[in-house]
């Protein structure tokens, strides 16, 4: 097969893989930048998004877990993918608000390590709750029938990538653009950005930061939820997916630069494409490469590729 088809395949695979990282990293990054809160439970929000998406979009047969034991062998609304994509962000947004109110607030003035620890613990609790109710075995989250197989467009049809993956890239691009515009060009964004730079001054000017902050957290959570819905059909769904995606997502944030949306995008693309290129060339090194890049970036440029000077201690 011709070289350019192969190159485009690798690039698209990388972008698609990167897109999921980006959706998670943008949320993590704006939360870390504004609230200075380290959220190790961000993967749990992704997990909630995936299960919510699955149960809204399809009907699934549970084979284990408490719900099955209680007689809910078949579960789910079966409304389809579009409703799931529209409803889930709101669900996870609300979860995010609750989390901001009852977890972030009480831990705001405690050390970073306590924030990491408590959210790490919460991540385990959420994962295990899903395991208890829905069982440990994976549930199939099939791609929508209208997005299976390569797109039937002259050139793209020759590329062995399913249509759903193009949608993932597209949806991510649109959402990230919206968040970017929101932060850069609205009053809300102005307050948030000012709060990132110098929260004391903003408060002195008589602007209460707690309200925009809770919204920031909600938006970050909603993005993780969307990542769950679009990323769900790419993987089998089980309770551990949240914590598995957490590590690369965090690395994306720190190599991109905390608080920088563009940085998160750059980091995600870099990760995704590196991984795809390595799989195509030296596949044994595919995962190692990811972490090697992260380590090198952090050692050479500790604030991240597009990070601004010192943000966190």
């Amino acid at each position, binding site marked *: *097969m011709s070289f350019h*088809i*192969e190159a485009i*395949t*690798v690039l698209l*695979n*990388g972008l*698609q*893989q990167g897109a999921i990282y980006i959706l998670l990293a943008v949320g993590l990054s704006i939360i870390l930048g504004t609230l200075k809160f380290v959220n190790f439970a961000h993967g749990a929000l992704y997990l909630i998004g995936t299960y919510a998406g699955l149960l809204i979009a399809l009907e699934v047969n549970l*084979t*284990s877990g408490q719900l099955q034991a209680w007689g809910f062998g078949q579960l789910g609304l079966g409304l389809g993918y579009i409703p799931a994509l529209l409803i889930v962000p709101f669900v996870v947004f609300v979860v995010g608000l609750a989390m901001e109110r009852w977890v972030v607030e009480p831990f705001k003035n405690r050390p970073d390590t306590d924030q990491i620890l408590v959210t790490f613990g919460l991540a385990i609790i959420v994962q295990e709750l899903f*395991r208890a109710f829905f069982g*440990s*075995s*994976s549930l*199939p989250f*099939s*791609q929508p029938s209208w997005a*299976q*197989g*390569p797109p039937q467009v002259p050139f793209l*049809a020759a590329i*062995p*990538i*399913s249509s*759903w*993956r193009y949608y993932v890239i597209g949806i991510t691009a649109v959402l990230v653009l919206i968040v970017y515009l929101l932060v850069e060009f609205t009053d809300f964004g102005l307050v948030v950005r000012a709060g990132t730079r110098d929260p004391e001054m903003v408060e002195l000017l008589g602007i209460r930061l707690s309200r925009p902050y809770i919204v920031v957290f909600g938006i970050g959570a909603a993005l993780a939820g969307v990542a769950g819905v679009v990323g769900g059909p*790419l*993987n*089998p769904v089980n309770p551990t*997916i949240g914590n*598995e995606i957490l590590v690369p997502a965090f690395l994306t944030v720190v190599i991109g630069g905390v608080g920088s949306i563009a940085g998160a995008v750059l980091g995600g693309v870099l990760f995704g494409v590196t*991984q*795809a290129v390595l*799989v*195509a060339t030296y*596949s*044994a090194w*595919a*995962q190692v490469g990811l972490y090697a890049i992260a380590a090198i970036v952090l050692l050479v440029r500790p604030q991240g590729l597009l990070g601004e000077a010192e943000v966190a201690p």
Partner: protein
Amino acid sequence: MGTNGGQIDRRDVIKAAGAAGTAGLVGLAGCSGGGGGGGGESEYPELGNYPIEGDTATFGFNVPQSGPYASEGEDELRAYELAVDHLNNGGGWVDSQFDDLSGDGVLDYQIDSVSGDTATDADTARQSASRMIQRDEVIMVTGGSSSAVAIAVQELCQRENTPFMACLTHSNDTTGQNCVRYGFREMFNAYMTGQALAPVLTDEYGDDLQFYQLYADYSWGQTVQESMNQFLTEAGWEEVDSVATPLGTSDYSSYLSEAANSGADVLLLDHYGLDGATSVSQAVDAGLDEDMELVVPLYNRPMAEAAGAAIEGVFGTVAWDSQIDNTPSQEFLQAFQDEYDRIPSGPAQLAYGQTLQYAAAAERAGTFYPPEVIRQLEDYEYDNVGMGPETMRGCDHQAQRDVPVVRGLPESEQAEGQYFEIINVTGRDELGYACDAGPAGECELGEYGDE
């Protein structure tokens, strides 16, 4: 390696000494019950968990209840529990196929069981097995569904002098370079899958084709890759490339794209369990099936169910299937359905068969003393587990048996519990290898424990 010098069982001695020591030291009356030396006098020395204290013999069921092979593990556990029920109360093969078994326990012992979750992880599995052996004093351990796990656990069982009846493990190494005296495998291996599958594939798809392999990067996937390569190359095909994927990979798209762009005619997906269902679904989603033929060398019912429409036309081998038309198979199907209202998978038949096989060997030996039970299993010939006449070969503890080759059905023809059709059942005479050849050539079984 620190094997036990004396042939006396450490734990029982310690336990007895513990009771005595307490009595002496603290003046506490020994409360460990009147059990003392166990039920009845035994003619053999203590070894492993023999002799059994009390009147219950405990089996340890070590299966994956989480991780990529969890679905297989759940079904195995159902079959194990069914086997225990039949051993104690009669029913199923105990009544009809195993003349050695009475249906009223084994050797005057009632059968009890403990189960553990291996999480498809060798370390967890070993911890769980060692708890069963040390604390629950199980007389036999069984389980499987990942060869890395099975190999790690059977090595532990050899050290602890506790028989291990391997359930689903398909790597050549299990009865090859990692074989042990205390482990027995009913399942066939990757080598035999290669032998059974190669002629079917060349018949179906033609000669002189090029193939590409993606394989799970551990003992099982590695030996499947090796064996498929060996037999397809001998049949005149050519391997373009083979690429390892980490166990538990959830998104194969990059690997699959590479395979698609390689120009090969056939793609072998050497993935099992959930990984297999995922990789074959993703291959179909990416449109690979339009230009390439997909083959999944080893699959089973839960996998085919999870893969759904993607399994259409995909060739592979299965451990056993309910569609196999002989008396034992149909009896097992019936018994399993009566109990659980569902159709058993191949791993379930293995689990059920291996448990009864062990119990029958103990009955024939007239004791649970492990070396005697092992000698009863070695070179034993049987025809009662639904796969035709078989021999549990003494030189490597590998069952010599038939291998069913199947092809996935289109979604429109799939029905509850029926996802593939049986193309043929390759006879055992066309399969396998001599005791000094193939994987068996690397096998050193180790000691019985009574030398």
